[in-house]
């Protein structure tokens, strides 16, 4: 078993177990910590695929930013009582069937020969560092979507402040 293979399985296990913890745990704070674990695993997968920049973004933005936001909100709305309630809704059995059906559909599709990709593709490494290449593409070919996303973020910030802010009347 080569190093790559080992790390792949290790990070995948981290991501999937973290995800399961997120969905199954009772206390919201625990859920958040499990999600953090899962994101860390995904970040490892990024690193394995040579996406160093995204790895950094995943760590800094997701685990450092979004998770702090989640934890903040958990403190704010005080979920102690919520953790004592029934955690799964009435439609859980049907939902499981639906989800399994969806994943089954995906796997069956992947397993069709036309879609299943060949295992080996000649992987010629890109010239230059990963961050530099991403930046080049992002700020040339995808400049307009980039700007649009910045506007989207601005709108989201204003909207969430509007909704979460106190009514001053």
């Amino acid at each position: 078993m080569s190093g790559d293979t080992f790390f792949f399985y290790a990070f995948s296990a981290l991501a999937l177990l973290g995800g399961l913890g997120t969905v199954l745990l009772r206390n919201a704070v625990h859920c958040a910590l499990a999600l953090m674990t899962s994101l860390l695993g995904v970040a490892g997968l990024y690193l394995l695929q040579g996406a160093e920049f995204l790895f950094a973004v995943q760590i800094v933005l997701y685990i450092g930013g979004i998770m702090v936001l989640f934890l903040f909100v958990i403190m704010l709305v005080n979920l102690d009582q919520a953790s004592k309630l029934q955690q799964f809704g009435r439609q859980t059995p049907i939902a499981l069937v639906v989800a399994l059906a969806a994943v089954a559909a995906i796997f069956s599709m992947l397993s069709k020969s036309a879609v299943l990709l060949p295992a080996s593709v000649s992987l010629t490494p890109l010239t230059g560092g990963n961050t530099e290449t991403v930046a080049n593409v992002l700020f040339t070919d995808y400049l307009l979507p980039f700007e649009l996303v910045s506007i989207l973020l601005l709108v989201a910030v204003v909207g969430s402040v509007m909704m979460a802010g106190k009514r001053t009347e």
Partner: protein
Amino acid sequence: MITINHYMAVSAALLLIGTVGVMTRRNIVVILMSIELILNAVNVNLIAFSKYHNQVTGQVFAIFVIAVAVAEAAVGLGVLIAMFRNKGTVQADEVDLLKW
């Protein structure tokens, strides 16, 4: 040998976990976290194909997905706070104003 298919399997599994969370959990905070899981499943796929085709476009898309995820989390949590303030609950099935 780890192929692209392995990555797609991990991605699909993560997606399954996420969708189950979205559909079953009553706590809205956890639902939002499950949505983050689904988005991460997408990102894993994008990165894998980026490597497979030896292009960075997939990584650029992943950046956009992360940006959208940030916006979604911010707005979703804002809605959650507003809902908690007005209704005093964070349980998804206690709000059914859309009912017929």
